[in-house]
């Protein structure tokens, strides 16, 4: 037996550390920063680095679908989040790596959790990052620990975009999944207060709201929130529910692929082609049943479909304006159809997408 030296620093169980000096980063981020070995099923450039605050007692919220939920079994440090491991590293080491690989970096994001120290530590880490690197930095914030003054302070420290993980897009589904829960309830009104305050402070198209398909909402709810946000120059970012094992929604099904693809397409048509609300037809249950499309406009649908762009990951942009945060394999397993593509879909992918969309049944 020969031992080949392999230069990877790992943190052992007896050395648990917490934010701000330590952060968890997504498995894909750890791979991009060469902190962790690994590879993607398909080759593509990846530079969207996600950091997550780390605490002994974890997130104090208890959302039904989340891997970090308080009542999900297991220690916080062992919990997966969006189904993958988030290894723990020294914050300064992560920042040193980001600086080392700066040319490949497209977007950085610190995800807060609902915790009493989250604001203080996010500010600390924001300052450490912006002192060392120029890669644009977003913050995915925890509204319960914020107010206008704190949002302004985070902006002054160098964050350029704010994300709010509303996730559940109707008041009813928010209440069911995030408020009426065993521990740590969240408030719909508090979330919207922070969304609007962020919009005031950060400006147009500098705030995004995460919207998850598959938490019990109707298509009408989803489309309605897109219009609501676009009218206020706020980006909705689209996520696909992906059941987290052992969470309270661990056995719930993912949204059907046809529903998901149509929502992706319609969102893109609203955002880029100004699709009018009345062109989208719903049944009495709020299900999207068709898209009224005059023949002159059909070309736009085909063009947008052929570009593949509607089916790519929704995320904060890099400096070049392209999506910089692509979260590969965040909402699907490598064996499944890409729910959102971290790269431009290729012709074979588009063939599958067309089949999944069933466009001929959708266009009226």
């Amino acid at each position, binding site marked *: 037996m020969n031992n080949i030296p392999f230069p990877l620093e790992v943190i*052992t169980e007896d050395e648990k550390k917490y934010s701000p000096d330590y952060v968890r980063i997504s498995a894909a981020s750890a791979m991009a920063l060469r902190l962790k070995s690994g590879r993607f099923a398909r080759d593509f450039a990846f530079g969207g680095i996600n950091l997550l605050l780390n605490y002994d007692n974890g997130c104090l919220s208890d959302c039904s679908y989340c891997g970090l939920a308080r009542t999900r079994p297991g220690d916080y440090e062992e919990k997966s989040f969006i189904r993958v491991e988030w290894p723990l590293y020294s914050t300064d080491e992560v920042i040193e790596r980001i600086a080392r690989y700066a040319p490949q970096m497209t977007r950085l994001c610190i995800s807060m959790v609902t915790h009493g120290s989250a604001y203080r530590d996010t500010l600390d880490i924001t300052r450490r990052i912006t002192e060392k690197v120029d890669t644009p930095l977003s913050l995915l914030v925890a509204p319960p620990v914020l107010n206008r003054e704190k949002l302004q302070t985070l902006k002054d420290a160098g964050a350029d975009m704010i994300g709010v993980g509303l996730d559940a897009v109707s008041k009813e589904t928010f209440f069911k999944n995030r408020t009426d829960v065993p521990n740590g309830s969240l408030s719909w009104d508090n979330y919207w207060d922070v969304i609007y305050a962020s919009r005031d402070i950060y400006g147009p198209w500098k705030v995004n709201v995460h919207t998850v398909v598959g938490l019990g909402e109707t298509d009408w709810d989803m489309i309605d929130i897109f219009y609501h946000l676009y009218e206020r120059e706020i980006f909705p970012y689209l996520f696909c529910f992906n059941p987290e094992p052992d969470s309270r929604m661990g056995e719930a099904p993912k949204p059907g692929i046809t529903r998901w693809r149509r929502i992706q397409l319609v969102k893109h048509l609203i955002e880029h082609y100004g699709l009018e609300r009345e062109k989208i037809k719903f049944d009495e249950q709020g299900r999207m049943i068709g898209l009224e499309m005059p023949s002159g406009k059909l070309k736009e649908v085909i063009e947008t479909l052929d570009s593949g762009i509607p089916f790519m990951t929704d995320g904060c942009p890099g400096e070049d304006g392209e999506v910089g945060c692509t979260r590969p394999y965040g909402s699907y397993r490598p064996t499944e159809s890409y729910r959102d593509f971290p790269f431009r879909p290729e012709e074979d992918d588009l063939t599958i997408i067309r089949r999944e969309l069933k466009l001929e049944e959708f266009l009226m």
Partner: protein
Amino acid sequence: MAQKKQIELRTDLMYDPVESLWVEVKDGIARIGLSPLVQESTGSFVAVRFSEPGTSLDKGESFVSLEAEKHVGHLKSPFSGIVMNVNEEVVEHPRLINTDPYGQGWLAEIRLSRPEELEGCIQGEEAVQAWFEAELKKYNDKGWLAQA
């Protein structure tokens, strides 16, 4: 306490250079598993699906599908033969491939129908070591390995 991780390489085994499988032959049956370099560079395994025992394989035919956090792929058999056994333990606990690739993380046992196909494998301490060092460099250049 921080520690340096090391890759353990067994030089007493043969290696299939196509899929980086280790091969151990006893009484005409080859037990095969994943080289520690491939397990390291693929990430944590989450699912394993084998061909049924009794399946007849041609050289180059897939015998297992492995899914990791961010990767999925089939492994091709380095030789022709019949699948005698598959490791049900790794079906239940795929991470065994990561934690013990030479031991509990073995994959399958195949009865060789053309033993001469083993000639395609790399064997002998020096040859194995040289092949592995070259593979290490290749994987490193592709960005699949962690760096200090």
